[in-house]
């Protein structure tokens, strides 16, 4: 059986970045991608705005991916494409990864695995859309694949439910392709996507955004003919009597992303309730020794730049992984924080520059992100605005905190 130091599952931005950094550590690595080509979901994100943080320029998704694919190829990193991982089994000294592809069934052995499997979209059924089951109900990502990869028009007249970024971007994209987007409906009282996308994708195209509204029913036996939208109350429950029927041929959903964590789960990795991804330490190692996670498989990032960044760290950590007793100090999540990643730190690791990503649990102005160790404030940073859709990142020197296994370290927004 072929033996690797690192096997990376997923050839999107996270997989590519982690593969490159693992390779830089001089290790034997393999990347496995289920699609024909590398690049992941970036392949269909032909809008710009990628790479602002990382390359200081506005790139389209394919351009951003291409930058990494070029390096990946230059470094002659081995990749298996059109290859699907059917099973990962944890063993004494690593993992056996079973894959299928056109050549058959193969078992591969590796010391470490990086899960860079990205995320999937929540479906109409998961948000309890009721009524009939016609054609014309798409997740925004599927609609995007149809338009940008297949060159096919999924709708002539639609509404979009959910103001997540892909939904906003698809509102603009479909408009540019001649479809009528009758409105974007969002159950929450505030938009779910980035503010810049609300401006650039909706306002600039006069597409109305209806907050505190949801779709309560779909109609049509063959093709979708109409949807019913209703206003919702503060608990997001539809208010009787506010129903409105909108004629359209498609309902496009941008109602959230969920990390693809099935492989992590089958390996027994502990998941975080909030991120829906595995819990991890500052080295991006999950609760399973030797199993790493990064990018949107770990938690859904707003920007691909962050994905590449944490994936590169995960790649480096996986390449340098040596099995040893873990000394993990868990973080406490305090007030006003939706979540923080990582959820713990490895005390034996280099703590001079620990990257933390966090989201606030609500909209706040002028509050401070605060770290307390044993009740004493050791770090704070003031933010003019904090909003749940906008992820924040900090690099913190934790050596200064003099942490040990008995420390209590708490993060909050006050």
């Amino acid at each position: 059986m072929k033996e690797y130091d690192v096997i990376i599952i997923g050839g999107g931005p996270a997989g590519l970045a982690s593969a490159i950094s693992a390779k830089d550590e001089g290790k034997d690595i393999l990347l496995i991608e289920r699609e024909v080509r590398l690049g992941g979901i970036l392949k269909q994100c032909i809008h710009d705005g990628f790479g602002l943080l990382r390359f200081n320029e506005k790139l389209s998704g394919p351009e951003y991916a291409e930058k990494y694919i070029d390096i990946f190829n230059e470094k002659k990193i081995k990749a298996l494409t059109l290859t699907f991982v059917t099973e990962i089994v944890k063993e004494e000294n690593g993992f056996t990864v079973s894959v299928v592809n056109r050549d058959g069934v193969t078992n591969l052995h590796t010391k470490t695995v990086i899960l860079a499997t990205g995320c999937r979209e929540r479906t109409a059924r998961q948000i309890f859309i009721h009524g009939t089951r016609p054609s014309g109900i798409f997740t925004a990502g599927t609609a995007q694949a149809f338009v940008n990869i297949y060159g096919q028009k999924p709708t002539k007249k639609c509404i979009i439910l959910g103001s997540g970024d892909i939904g906003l971007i698809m509102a603009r994209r479909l408009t540019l392709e001649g479809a009528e987007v009758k409105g974007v409906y969002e159950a929450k009282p505030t938009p779910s996507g980035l503010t810049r996308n609300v401006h650039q994708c909706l306002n600039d195209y006069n597409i109305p955004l209806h907050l505190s509204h949801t779709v309560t029913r779909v109609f049509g036996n063959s093709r979708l003919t109409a949807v019913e939208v209703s206003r919702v109350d503060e608990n997001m429950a539809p208010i009787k009597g506010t129903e409105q029927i909108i004629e359209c041929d498609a309902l496009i959903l941008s109602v959230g992303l969920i990390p693809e964590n099935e492989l992590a789960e089958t390996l027994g990795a502990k998941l975080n309730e909030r991120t829906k991804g595995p819990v991890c330490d500052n080295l991006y190692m999950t609760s399973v020794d030797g199993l790493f996670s990064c990018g949107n498989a770990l938690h859904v990032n707003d920007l691909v730049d962050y994905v590449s960044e944490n994936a590169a760290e995960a790649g480096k950590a996986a390449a340098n992984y040596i099995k040893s007793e873990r000394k993990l100090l868990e973080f406490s999540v305090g007030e006003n924080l939706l979540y923080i990643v990582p959820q713990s730190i490895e005390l034996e690791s280099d703590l001079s520059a620990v990257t933390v990503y966090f989201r606030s649990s609500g909209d706040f102005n002028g509050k401070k992100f605060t770290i307390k160790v044993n009740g004493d404030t050791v770090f704070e940073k003031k933010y003019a605005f904090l909003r749940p859709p906008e992820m924040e990142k900090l690099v913190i020197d934790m050596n200064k905190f003099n942490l040990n296994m008995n420390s209590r370290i708490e993060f909050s927004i006050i």
Partner: protein
Amino acid sequence: MNIKKIQKRLNSSFDGKVTASYRDNSIVLEGELSSWDDIVKACYTAAKRYSKTHVVNDIKFTGAEIPKMRVPDFSDKSLEGSFWDVLIIGGGISGASIARELSKWELDVLLADKEPDLALQASGRNDGEIHPGVDLSKGSLKHRYVLLGNKMYESVCKELSVPFERRGQYVGFTQRWTFPFVVLYALKKKYIDDVTDTKIISRKNLIAAEGKINPNFKFALFNSSAACVCPYGITIAYAENAVSNGVKVSLGTAVTGMVVEDENIVSVSTNRGTIYPKLVINAAGVFSEDVAKMAGDRFFSIHPRKGTDSILDKKAGVLLNSIAAIKETALKRSHTKGGGVLHTVHGNLLIGPDALETYKKEDTATEPSSISKVFAKQKRTVPALTERDIITYFAGVRAPTFEEDFIIEAGRKTKNIIHCAGIQSPGLTCAPAIALDIEAKALEMLKKDGLVINENKSFNPIRKAIPALKEMAPKEREELIKKNPDYGVIVCRCEEISKGEILDALSSPISVPTVDGVKKRVRPGMGRCQGGFCMPLVIQIIADYLNIPMDEVKKSYDNSSVLFGDIKEKSKELL
């Protein structure tokens, strides 16, 4: 009950608005009511459970317009002028199993269904339980056929290569005082009603078998013969085997009328031409009353009853290995066991169904209230169930008579028809046994008509299934991929379905080259992402296979194309 008594009872509830009369050995109710529930109530008032004297509902419903039967939008002449020994109307489990049994004989058999695929109504919209019959008593056709059908399932599924699992059924009781009654009930079931596998099991043994079941269950009624099958899978399998043995299946074919002369069906009109069958088998589900009416043989009525089921992610499959339900009031007679939780052959959990009377025979739209009610109840069967694990839900409309029993008999007036009507739960369980009886009846009737019927010497009872590579041992899988590398290209990540399997579905005996047709046969899109990732790929594979543009690929029905064509069409026009 005599008609005067019925009338008296009706009068007390409906104030003279409904009149009852005997006509041709049926109880005909007439009048006008604005509430459908009242109509159902009136008919129940007049009906006797399991009776062969049926209630015919001629009460005019003034509350709303009853939707007309949906028929295909297209028509052609592909069946015009054709002659058949047997026409089976309806491609559900009844029609498909009858077609297969008739294919043992040298007969020209046509199975027609108005839908674009088999099992698109009740047969594909139920929980797939093969019932033990523990809720049925001697004297009904349901009881007779459930015991026979249940026993036949292993061999049928083996012949047809359909996954089948005997997982057993637990009905849990939370109140200890009911114990003596349930013991008596179990004894009656076992020794009088011949449901021989009926057992009472203790709480301890129940918990040992199903660790996640409601710990407040004091004891349970257990039937080891209860089993699970994929209900549309078995229907398609039956029909495929029938086709392989010479039956013609014509989908998208709606029966719209009949010419009856001298109590004989002479011709049957469809959207694909007029056909001339010697014998008609009415397996039309919720429309079986309509078909009977066309044949001049309407002696029963169907009252549509809708049920909704939820399907949970395979992650939740660990919560229950079998079939389980809760019984809170001691053995009250009801139309179903009140829904339950079932571990499907694909590893998901299925929750439901409920039972709601409706005047809409094809109303398969789902309602949030159905899901929440069913969940609230079944959380008392398996407390760890959560709505968050729901990946999809569906509704189906059952086709009961007011007598709540099947109608398996030749026409009462019209001579060349056999009714297989009033089929509801446990119709799936009963189908293999019913099909044998209808086969015998059909042969008898055709022979009486002077037809000489020979055995179909080339009949092969074995259906080869499309390989399910995910279920295979690595070596076996490897060998198949070596033969056909498309088996190594995974298209549906959630269910691990390969391109090879999808192509197999497209070239299967009853190819339905739509997104749903492929999904029903090999499962891409059945998983947690519900086709988000694989739908474009599946559409592309279908388009390539048929050599048509992607925008001509349909989800299911005729007007259900998924796409509207090339995005650059407009700019092309400008060039």
